[in-house]
């Protein structure tokens, strides 16, 4: 809205416009101030605190040693320690595995559910159940399900002749434990991915399909040239959120394997926890958390570039 006095001259009008703009800016700033304060308090202060701690030598169990500046010691250890690098590798394995499985299966389910049918809402509600369960409970459920004595999955595998695969309990098998964690995580989060993608599918306009149909495009062509590109924003949301949450995976690792067997399922978040709450090494643990944070930022930027950087179809 533009206001001006009748008969006012140019410069006076412009000055008034500037005042208006400045007033509007102040007003706008006032509106976002609560959110800004919230972000600073909830996000920036803890982050800054963690950054500061990561440069300290601080062990809660040894207050007699005091809190001393450590320079880059924690980071040097972080990047030269082969265990940390192995842990980063295991974390990538988990994140890539979990996100891929969830995306592929979630997309398939979303496509299957993208038609209204009787009982659609019931199916949708049932689909959400795993997502509503706390990760700790999911961990216990899967630990039970995979128990080599009475777990139904193991029993079933033995019944259908795949007993050889589960001779050694899966969670105690170093090469099987991580894939099993990925399956458990996928079981919990596929509904989330499905819902995000389903919402995306619902917003895809019908016209491009009509045009493609007239042009004689096959269903596969329609999927790859229309559905997938138009679904890109939803895929980006699902993948970014799931990557960030997978990087922090802790609960199911803690409950299902405790990081074992050996170090086969020890992820960065678990390592950070162990350093913070078993060794009480606050400084090094903060450095581990900063590394996790850095990886999350890099992942997010990469996804934005790869998935979000294409043509805008809106």
């Amino acid at each position, binding site marked *: 809205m533009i206001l001006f006095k009748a008969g006012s001259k140019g410069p006076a009008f412009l000055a008034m416009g500037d005042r208006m703009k400045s007033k509007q800016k102040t007003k706008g700033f006032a509106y976002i101030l609560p959110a800004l304060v919230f972000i600073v308090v909830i996000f920036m202060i803890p982050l800054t605190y963690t950054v500061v701690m990561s440069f300290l030598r601080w*062990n*809660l*169990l*040894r*207050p*007699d*040693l005091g809190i001393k500046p450590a320079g880059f010691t924690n980071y040097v250890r972080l990047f030269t320690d082969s265990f940390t690098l192995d842990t980063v590798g295991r974390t990538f394995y988990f994140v890539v595995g979990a996100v891929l499985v969830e995306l592929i299966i979630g997309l398939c389910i979303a496509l299957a559910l993208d038609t209204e049918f009787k009982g659609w809402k019931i199916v949708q509600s049932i689909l959400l159940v795993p997502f509503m369960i706390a990760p700790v409970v999911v961990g216990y459920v899967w*630990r039970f399900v995979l*128990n*080599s*004595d009475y777990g139904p999955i193991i029993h079933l595998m033995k019944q259908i002749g795949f007993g050889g695969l589960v*001779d*050694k*309990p899966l*969670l*105690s*098998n*170093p090469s099987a434990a991580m894939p099993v964690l990925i399956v458990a995580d996928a079981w919990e989060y596929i509904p989330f991915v499905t819902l995000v993608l389903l919402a995306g599918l619902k917003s895809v306009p019908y016209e491009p399909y009509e045009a493609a149909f007239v042009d004689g495009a096959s269903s596969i062509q329609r999927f790859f040239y229309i559905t997938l590109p138009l679904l890109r924003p939803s895929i980006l949301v699902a993948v970014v959120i799931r990557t960030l949450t997978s990087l922090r995976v802790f609960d199911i690792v803690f409950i299902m*394997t*405790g*990081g*074992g*067997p*050996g*170090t*086969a399922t*020890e992820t960065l978040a678990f390592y950070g926890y*162990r350093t913070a*709450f*078993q*060794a*009480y090494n606050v400084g090094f643990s903060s450095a581990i958390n900063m590394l996790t944070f850095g990886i999350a930022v890099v992942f997010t930027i990469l996804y934005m570039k790869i998935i979000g950087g294409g043509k805008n179809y809106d």
Partner: protein
Amino acid sequence: MRTRFMLLLFVLLIASCFAVPLRLSSEVGIHTDAWKTRMEGFTKETGIEVDIQQFPYANYLDQLMLGYTSGRVEIDVPYISMLWYPALSIANYIYPISDIPGYEKINEADIPGIRNAKLNGKTYIVPYMNELGGIIYRKDLFEDPVEKANFLNKYGYELLPPQTLEQYRDVAEFFNRPPDLYGVTMMGRRSIFLATHFMQRLWAKGGALLDMNMRPIFNSEAGVEALEEVKYMFQFANPAAMNYDFQEALNEFISGRSAMAEVWTTGMFYVEDESRSSIVGKAGFVGFPRPEEKLGEKLPMLYISWGFSVSSSAPDKEAALEWLLYVTETKNEVEAAPTGNIPARFSALNSPELAESFPWIGDFASAMENCIPTPIVPLIPEGGSIVSGIIAPAVSEFLAGTKTAEKALDDAVKEVDRLMRDGGYY
């Protein structure tokens, strides 16, 4: 009117200062339930009110540490694991109880393992619950005449609760009849429980975690043998035991699916719990076996203890000591024990009333008298990190087959060495 009101307010304020109860804290657990039954009697006898805050075990230490570090702890008498007191005492968060006037009434000579509660000659924790790592076994199976005859026939000696590591292996092999009965239940999940299997054998074979100069020495020949022995015993355990923790191991044993369980004494309370055990009255306890050549020697045995400490910030330390004297009195320990505690005093362990409630308590007392009670982790602030964070993963790596025994132990020793250097030990 206003003056009267102000006066009343002042009086109430002063009264409230004096009426501050003794503030206890603990984890949620059965031995805490046991001493909680004494709180009312204590108040009746002394007029001192007591209040308790309980936390889940998993975050109890965190709560204490964060409270003490921030200076906002409101606990006078924390009931803690013996493993925690070194860190708390070095930081002066807890007070040397032996410095409180009247402490001599505690009668330390009656408490086995009290030497573990001392730092620089001062006592920081008074044990209330004591237990040992050992073997709980199925008495009914061991006393079965057919089993005895078959065992004698196969191994050439009498079937008895194992005293030596050799007997332990034989008995586990003999009773291993999967899937209905396993020879032994062990705890293979990567945790402090798994580390105990290694440490018990290391000690039994004459090894140690650290030497006198606090340097790690568990990659010795005894260490390698101990680790290999752990793996050997797992062949007589349920394959699922590779991911068992304490509770799962106990569940297997109390459901009658194994002849022995390598756990610790508290397991006997679960055995006797009619609501969940199918072997009530059918189990016994024996201390951890040792090599035949070391029979009769006093060797270190896994020792777990919880007890009472006193916060340095406690305003009335005499009241705190009153509580300690009351709750650890033999009579009170005996009366509280059936709720779920193994008393810390010999006088309580050997009392006839307790022997009636717990027929196995005599075997426990005798195991306690014939060993060197050795805490589950070295009593230094880094002890927990060494056992849970370094030794447990090393044992797990060996069991998982990702490292040889030598490599797993050598790597673990290097890590402990770094930890100790960081801690300024050398």
